[in-house]
Structures are given as structure tokens and as C-alpha cells.
């Protein structure tokens, strides 16, 4: 039996998470709103773009706003990096700065759709793992790339549902299904989840967690949207753990049409 179904703890790199909702930080209107959204979401993993952190300034506002929450795993990300070298440089700096060794690897050379570069991501992941980082790579929903990253020693894989900030839901469903089926590391669906129902969908499919930024930060009421996503994730996870019934194209009447044969 699938170990994921035995216990509902999410474990990444030896650390247990009670929430399967990860949160991004880049788009909130103020750190006060972000604070309340973090609490409402119940999240224990928060990603922050290193390019937004003043690495020269130990009292950086954004970092402090996140670090003050207890039980939060800080997940610095390398967004803006165009190749493996740039991502590596940023990761090393973040570690030197005291941001820890967890890193959300993002190599997105195309500033329009912010789609991840599979080649550079794999190169960066291999190097980062060797340097002792706990690497959570953002990838397109490519099952083979996911396996290659897993072999390289990444802690998770994070396939996108649709492009960042698009709120279009899971458009890469078939490939995410395969990634989940083949994965031996947690699968975190990242990017494109616009509604709690999208998050629920990902969890029902068997994703181990989801990461949400835009849909919460850009909502009219980010705090209640964060709470709504928490519920969506929990509902989806509960449905998955309960053993989803199978979809069919034909009706199954509760009084079988051929029941007379058994009379």
C-alpha cells in the first residue's frame, strides 16, 4: 500500500509538515496583509524571492516579516535566474546570509510566461544537491524531467499547473498524473492554481502539496482567500485519502437493470 495513505504527514527532507499548502510572498499589498494571510492559510512553508531580499541588510523587512512566524520553513527561491550559474550564485549567497539550505530552484529565462528551463534546472539541481542544498525544483509538467531530478537528489518536484500568475488551474493534468504516479519524492503542484477548487483538484489527484501565490495575494480579500485555499487543500487531501470513486461514462442505477436475472 502507498505509504502516503498510511500517514497524513507530509515529510520533505526529514521535516514533517502539518499543512500541505505552501505560500508565495511576492505580490501582497503590504506585509500586514501578508502576515494575516499566512496565519489564515495555516501554511508551514513560505517561499520568498531572493531578488526581493536585501542581502546586504540583515534587518531586511521581507525576511523578518516571514521569519517571525513560528514553525515556518523558509524557502528562498531563485526567481529571475536565467541559467544554472545564476541560480547557484543566489542560492550560495542566501545560505551565507543565514537563510538556511532549503532552496526553491527556479530558472526562468523567459520573462513573459516565466516558464522553467528544463536543461538549466537539471544542471543547477545536480550541483546544488552536491553542495548540500535541499532542492525543490520548479519544473514544467514533464515526467521524465521529474524522474531525472529525483535521481539527482532533489527533495521534491514542483510541476506547474499552468503559467505563473495565470490562475488557469491544472492545464497540464495528464502529465501531472504521470508525475504523481511515478514519483518517489513529494510532488508539489506549483503555479497557475487560481481557485481553491484547483487546489482541491490537485490534491484529489494525489499531489502531496500545492504552492499558491497570486490567487491569494491578488484576491480582493487575501486573508479569507488564504483560509479558503486551506479548506480546498484539506478537502482535496481528505478525498484522496478516502479513496476517490472512479469516474465512468455510463450510469449505474442503484436498482440494476439486469437485476431480474438474479430473481
Amino acid at each position, binding site marked *: 500500500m502507498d505509504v502516503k495513505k498510511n500517514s497524513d504527514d507530509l515529510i520533505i527532507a526529514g521535516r514533517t509538515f502539518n499543512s500541505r499548502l505552501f505560500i508565495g510572498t*511576492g*505580490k*501582497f*499589498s*503590504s*506585509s500586514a496583509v501578508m502576515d494575516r494571510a499566512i496565519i489564515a492559510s495555516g501554511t508551514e512553508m513560505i517561499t520568498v524571492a*531572493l*531578488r*526581493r*531580499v*536585501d*542581502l*546586504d541588510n540583515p534587518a531586511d523587512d521581507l525576511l523578518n516579516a516571514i521569519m517571525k512566524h513560528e514553525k515556518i520553513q523558509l524557502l528562498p527561491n531563485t526567481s*529571475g*535566474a*536565467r541559467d544554472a*550559474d*545564476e541560480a547557484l*550564485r*543566489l542560492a550560495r*549567497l542566501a545560505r551565507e546570509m543565514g537563510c538556511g539550505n532549503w532552496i526553491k530552484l527556479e530558472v526562468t*529565462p*523567459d*520573462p*513573459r*510566461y516565466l516558464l522553467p528551463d528544463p536543461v538549466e534546472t537539471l544542471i543547477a539541481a545536480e550541483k546544488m544537491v552536491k553542495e548540500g542544498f535541499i532542492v525543490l525544483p520548479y519544473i514544467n509538467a514533464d515526467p521524465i524531467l521529474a524522474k531525472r531530478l529525483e535521481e539527482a537528489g532533489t527533495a521534491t518536484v514542483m510541476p506547474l499547473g499552468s503559467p505563473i*500568475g*495565470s*490562475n488557469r488551474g491544472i492545464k497540464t493534468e495528464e502529465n501531472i498524473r504521470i508525475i504523481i504516479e511515478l514519483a518517489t519524492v513529494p510532488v508539489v503542484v506549483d503555479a497557475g492554481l487560481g481557485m481553491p477548487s484547483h487546489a482541491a483538484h490537485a490534491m484529489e489527484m494525489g499531489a502531496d502539496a500545492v504552492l499558491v501565490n*497570486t490567487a491569494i*495575494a*491578488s484576491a480582493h480579500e487575501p486573508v479569507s482567500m488564504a483560509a479558503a485555499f486551506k479548506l480546498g487543500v484539506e478537502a482535496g487531501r481528505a478525498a484522496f485519502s478516502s479513496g476517490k470513486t472512479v469516474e465512468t461514462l455510463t450510469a449505474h442505477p442503484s436498482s440494476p437493470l439486469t437485476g431480474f436475472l438474479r430473481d
Partner: protein
Amino acid sequence: MFDELYAHHTWETVKELIYGCNEQDVQHALSAESLSPEEMAALFSPASDPFLETMAVKSSHITRMRFGNIIQLYAPLYISNECTNSCVYCGFNRNNDIKRMTLTLDQVVDEANLLYERGFRHVLLLTGEHRKAVPVSFLGEIAEHIHRKFASVSIEVYPMETDEYRYMSQRGIDGLTLYQETYNREIYSEVHPAGKKKDFLWRLTGPDRGGMAGFRKIGIAPLLGLADWRVEGYFTALHALYLSKTYWRSHIQISFPRLRKAPGGFHPPVEISDYALTHLICVMRIILPDAGLVLSTREPEYIRDNVMSLGITMMSAGSRTEPGGYTRPGLADNQFSIEDSRSPEEMCRVIRGHGLDPVWKDWDRDFIS
């Protein structure tokens, strides 16, 4: 390069295309997922004027989804006001009798330090066009110094060769801003009567050279007030779309500089209303959902406060447009007078008051080794 695409368009045919659009074309364009040239033209057309509110709602929504609730701040740093051109609208016109100077490296560093203390982490270096007063090597030296401190350093200087841009990039410059001023070739010739700037195509292909040199950000703009803003807007969008497809690793930015009074007594030939400016910003956002849209202190408080949430992603604050303006005011004359003189601190309060988060740093110098 863009001159090839530009050669397929004349000002008159684009103008006809724009002015020939009707209400139905606009409605069609507003519901289209990706825009054809005709649909793009419809959004600039007079027929689209009654749809401004709809466009503003759409523009604002796209911006919040793509960029979040933030405005990124930057500051211009003028290195020199010496210039060999005679652009009729510009305070630095070589024929103007103004106090001129080129800062020394130490003076530039003083200016930069003050901007850093004020909170800025993104700085834009500017000069006139004077390769003797400000050679590429000097700009490189400045870049190396400034780059140690700031998250992002861009240049808005005379157009360079690809190799020179590459050199600037290697010295730590990550962004290039180069306004075409106008995409109307005849008007371009009239307002740029002398100097290297006379060469329309040299300037038009400047962003291409920057793209080839690998700049991470490429900024373009028309100077608003020289020609019909609808046609100018269309060409600007065309240029931006071309750049974003060709140099797909670079982030494209568009500014909306309305001409201001400058030393020399120039009066803009075309009036650009607040309405037109707002229209342009919203349409640019709809056409280019991912472009950085920049609004400087050229604009008065009233406009800046009201359009900042409609599509703008970058604003300057507390700017000076003369060399030495931050630490040694009065030593040199400015390029134009700014309209919004609020301090960066005050600007942050205003931005927050609009439900947006002022962001000082949205880049990292360590992207470039």
C-alpha cells in the same frame, strides 16, 4: 533587426488602419485572447475612446495578476549634461546656453551613496550624447563602482555598438533604456537637426544591439507630444512585441514621457491630454501583459496618484534631472523640470495609500557575476 519590420509599415498606413476602426472592432479586440495587428490598432483608435473605463479595469486586473500589488521604485542619476545633439525639445541641446558639467567618478559615487541612503536599490544612469565628455570606458568604470552597492543599474545614454553594450553588461549594467522619441521619420528629422542623433535607424536598432549584448531589461518609449499619440503608441507596441519575441530572455519596459518645458523655450507641437496618457498606459498593458510600465516624476502628483494602480509597475521618486542634483544642486542645469517633487518617503506613503506595496529591490546584482 527592427528596422526591417519597421520598413513594412508607413506612418500613413498605420494611421489609416487605426482611424478606420469602428466600435465593433474595439469590442472584438477587447474580448480577444491574443491580438492581431488590426485588433491592436482598434485599441488605439478614436472608436476605443468610449471604452476607456473597460480598458482601465482590464489593464488593472492584468497588472495585479502578473505583478501583484506592488510598485517598484527607482531613481535617475545624471552623470553629465554635455551634449553634441541639438534635439529641439531637450534642455541639454548643444545650442542652449546652460550651466554644463560632467561629474567625476567620486561625485557620481556621492550621488549614488545619497540615493542608497534614501532607500533606492535600482538606479538609472543618464548622460547626454557626448562621447568625449563621457566615454564608454568612463561609464564602465562608474558601472563597476555603482554595481557593488545597487541591486540593479541601468543606463539611458547615447546609443552604442553591440560590443560596447556587451562591455557595459560585463561591468554590471543589467538594463538599457533608449527612447526612440518618435517613430515618425519626418518629425524625427525635424526635431533632431544635428549631431549623431540625426541618424534615425541607428537609434531605432539600438535596442536590438542591447538585446544582442544580453541586457536583462530593455526599455523603450516615444516622447509624447511630438506626433499623433495613437500612431506612436501602435509603433511602440509593435517595437516592444518584436523585442520580446526576438530577445526572449530580456524583460521589456515601456515609459510614457510627456514632453515638459525645458530650457530653450520649446513647446510640444501635439498636446497629450491626461485622457490620452491614461488610454496609452491601459492599452499597452492589454497588449503587453508582462511589460514593465514606467511613470516618472515628469508627471504631476494628480496624474501619478491616479494612474499608478491602472497598469504602472515602476516609478521614480524625488528625482533630479541635472548632474550633481542630489548632492551638489545648482552646479548644473537640468534636462527638464520635474512635476512631482515629493520625497521617496512621501511617495511610499502615497503608494501604500493606494493599497500597493512600494518595492525598493526587485533584482539582484548577483544574477550578473
